[in-house]
């Protein structure tokens, strides 16, 4: 069981959905916010995948858990994807 007192929160409201909601509210008040605006309504940012992304993924693969393909850099960058799709579209059947 999580010891909420570690985070400076009361240990009384830890049971049930309502309890967790209270913890969240208390957390927001005491710890503060990392980002501006309502988190629930914010979209994730656009993902741009390029050679730098591949390099980073391979460099930091040992530090975090991810799929083998990503760790090995086996994914298409946006540019590679465009080129590959174009090449495949231009193939003519006999």
């Amino acid at each position: 069981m999580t010891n909420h007192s570690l985070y400076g929160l009361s240990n009384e409201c830890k049971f049930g959905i309502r309890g967790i909601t209270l913890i969240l509210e208390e957390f927001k008040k005491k710890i503060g916010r990392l980002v501006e605006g309502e988190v629930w309504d914010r979209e994730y940012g656009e993902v741009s995948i390029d050679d730098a992304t591949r390099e980073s993924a391979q460099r930091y693969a040992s530090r975090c858990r991810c799929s083998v393909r990503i760790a090995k850099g086996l994914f298409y960058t946006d540019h590679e994807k465009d080129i590959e799709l174009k090449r495949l579209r231009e193939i003519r059947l006999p």
Partner: protein
Amino acid sequence: MDRFDEISLQRIKDLSELYYLVKELILYWEETNPEQKADLQVINELRNAFDHLMRAFAAKFDVNKHEDSGYVAGQIDKAFGHVYRAGYDTLDWIGLNCKLYISEELTGFSNETINTVIPQYYRTIKPELEEFNETFADLRQKKDIGNPNLENMLAYISAVKTIREHQKNIIRLKPSLIEHETKKRHAEKKTLTIGFVIGLVCVIVAFLLGFFLGPTSNSPQEAKSGPQVLQNYAPMTLQKETKTGSNLPGDTLGHTESKKQLTPNPTTK
């Protein structure tokens, strides 16, 4: 905690079914992708779908309070749209790779061989594949995935499965294709050889006929200089500024007339 209303429950059920189909597609794509590469944009779509799904749960469990009664159903619809988009992108990849695979398998075989061994290729397989890829190319160009619903996705998956069956058939018929093409090439080579031999025989016969039945000369001079008929057809040369007139008998004025004319080559007479 309130229960999900009937509409939301139905949408969650649809989403679960769609996710099952899309997951199968993604797994198939990962297994068959010749480059063994992942498409991170597909994974990104699933991440966004998860985000919308969690918003719906948060609203339902009052973690994020919403007065709007349609909020939950709306978020589930958005999640559905993202999963649909992931499936659509994967289908596009699969369709194009099927085309690549079939094209590579049939490269080197003549149209006649393909038509003989796989009669349904030009009738059904090729048109179906072209139509499938054109549909996806159009949708991609419009940046629109159409109306995201389960029926459309099922129709696309059904088309992909048919194409996959065609692909398997082509692999199964590859030995017959090779056999037919080899026989065809042998037959062509044979026809070419026979044609060459017939042509050669004709030339030899013509030469022999010319040698034995051609005109014979009696006089030694004719035999030396060639037949008279040939002499009359000596090559014609274009002579520039030939002086005529003064050399002609009866030209008393002795004027010269410059003109270009074709005359028989005097050396040949």
